[in-house]
């Protein structure tokens, strides 16, 4: 494999947040700055169980971003596909112009495609194993959103899907950082996504104090030298990511866009990539969250240096 990175520095040149307070990096940051209301009754889900208010991506319509019509997509896959496009646009990149074998993806999702799992499994349970849906089944797997993004955007470089609860997005960033640093890819799309569904809300405890949210945030990572050479606007340098099981019991503040599970770390990172923070070291500590739904918590520490 040809290596193009020589100084091993990795930078973030684009982000594609999709949240209840804003879609796209500028709108998302504006939404946060304005204190836009991202929490309310669901418009999409018939049953939100014990949760009266959720942080749904109310204004999100996949058709606004997709190039071609799709027969079926899980909400999580929709979020991922669209976040990829937003991130690439933000970075000033056209996926069709990137060498497909040098373009990679790393996605973190705590729950994957629960709505599709429900659609398939409910049929199996009601009528028997002969009556599941083979088409929906292929969309139930946690790696399906990544796979669909690979097919859609011709991503033939390194690919990974991480399912480590709310640390998922951090795991995804760590893998992507290593791929760029090792010269395994020129561009990595890395981040996280999780979608709200009735079946997810039913499984969460209303006593946990969280506002369940959905969202996605893919980031564009590339070698600093490559970014400088193409005149890209560098949001920050990604210095290190570590995910361990050594967290304390600190509870993170729930942001205005809710608790977005696998998208938590990439979204926090995106929110921190502001003019005021330029040049500062950002540390994102993930607590309150855990790998699964309980346990002593994980720590994801992201260190971002300055841009150019």
């Amino acid at each position: 494999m040809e290596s193009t990175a020589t100084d091993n520095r990795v930078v973030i040149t684009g982000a594609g947040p999709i949240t209840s307070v804003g879609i796209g990096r500028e709108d998302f940051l504006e939404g946060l700055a304005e204190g836009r209301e991202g929490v309310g009754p669901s418009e999409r889900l018939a049953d939100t169980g014990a949760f009266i208010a959720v942080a749904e991506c109310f204004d999100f319509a996949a058709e606004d971003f997709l190039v071609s019509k799709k027969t079926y997509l899980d909400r999580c896959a929709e979020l991922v596909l669209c976040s990829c496009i937003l991130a690439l646009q933000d970075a000033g990149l056209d996926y069709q112009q990137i060498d497909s074998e040098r373009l990679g993806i790393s996605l973190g999702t705590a729950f994957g495609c629960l709505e599709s799992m429900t659609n398939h499994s409910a049929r199996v349970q009601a009528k028997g194993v002969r009556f599941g849906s083979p088409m929906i089944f292929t969309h139930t797997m946690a790696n399906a959103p990544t796979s669909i993004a690979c097919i859609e955007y011709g991503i033939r470089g390194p690919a990974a899907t991480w399912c480590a609860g709310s640390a998922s997005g951090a795991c995804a960033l760590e893998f992507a950082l290593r791929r760029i640093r090792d010269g395994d890819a020129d561009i990595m799309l890395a981040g996280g996504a999780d979608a709200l569904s009735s079946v997810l809300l039913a499984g969460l405890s209303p006593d946990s104090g969280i506002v369940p949210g959905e969202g996605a945030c893919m980031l564009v990572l590339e070698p600093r030298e490559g970014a400088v050479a193409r005149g890209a606007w560098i949001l920050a340098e990604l210095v290190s990511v570590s995910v361990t099981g050594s967290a304390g019991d600190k509870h993170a503040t729930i942001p205005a866009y809710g608790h977005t599970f696998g998208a938590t770390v990439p979204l926090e990172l995106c929110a921190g990539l502001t003019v005021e923070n330029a040049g500062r070291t950002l540390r994102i500590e993930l607590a309150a969250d855990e790998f699964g739904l309980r346990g002593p918590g994980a720590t994801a520490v992201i260190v971002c240096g300055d841009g150019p």
Partner: protein
Amino acid sequence: MSETQSGRNRAVITGLGAVTCLGGGVEGLWEGLLAGRRGLSEFAKFDPTGLRNSLCGQVRDWAFTPAEFGLHEAPDEAAQFLLVAAAEAIADAGLSERLHAGAERRPEVGLCIASNFAGAVSWEQYLPSVLAKEPSLEQFAQFSFGNALSLCRDVFGAAGPASQLSMACASGTACIGLAAELIREGQAEVVIAGGYDSLAASPLSGLSLLRTITDDDLYPFSANRSGTLFGEGAGVLIVESLQHARARGARCYCEVLGSWQNNNAYHLTAPDEGGAGMARVLAGALGKAGVAPERVAHINAHGTGTEYHDVAETQAIKSVLGAAAYEATVVSIKGAISHLMGAAGSVEGIVAALSMFHQVVPPTVNYGEPDPECDLDYVVDGRREQRIDYAASISAGIGGDNACIILGRAD
């Protein structure tokens, strides 16, 4: 063998643990494979009526004792498989005194685990509780992907880097390669790596309806192949820095030299033309390992026995190894233990490691009729002693995910 390479630590495999339908942990698996034994049986877990096949690689006579792991209650079944395989691997590595229930937390010990369906059995129990408007939060927690990761961390005191992958049936191979990366980068001295999955109605329904499951039998790389059969279990490998392993006098099965993982970017279920994605994953892993393709003497193949896959994998191997492909042995163990989904790659990684360590390869069990399109040396006439300096283990999964690891001798 020097303890570092290009300034990086070297990652060796020092412990193995397996739960498969052959029973008896790693010894039962290895001895069974060498003897050409098959561990398949008729579905007992749930009514298979309506599936294309009633044969599967289910784990039989399963007994789990929560107290042995410091637990009050038994977790989800797939997590049980993982915990038992991990305990075997830890014991095999001689690390039981350091890594056990109630032991001190070890920041130098990491986790990299993987599953296709995670707590699939718990999901089957959770869903009816939701539909009945009495959702079981406990079942949901047991189903969730992070559950087994939290359990392993707590049970074995592994407080270092922790991650979990889901890359369909490539999961179990990918996690071994990534564990080795953590070692090479110095992020951990020991990583517990492994894949796990259990049989449940919903995934089996989907796999049957996709006709991935044969209505006949599983004949890897054979002309009469018509699909695969699925099973369950776990495979766990202790991946350790060579320095750490040497300092404590541990036995090293082999070294993990490099890995790659990618996606076909072609179709959710069909393999791409000529196995191009698998060829890229094999070439990528060899590149990372710094091993010339013609030096690969043995490949533990994915070899599912599906019509399209086996020929695509054969083509991929030939396109990367060239003429040397005909000199290498290419083995599928799925005829013996079936396709273990997210655990498949880890169990196959264990078998590849043992093949390197003992310099003997098991046969492709249940090979059927020769297929002119699958024309490599699939070791069809029983176990074979072979000099292996470098080996590869390849996995591929639904969604088009592929993973490959390259192993080298540790001596």
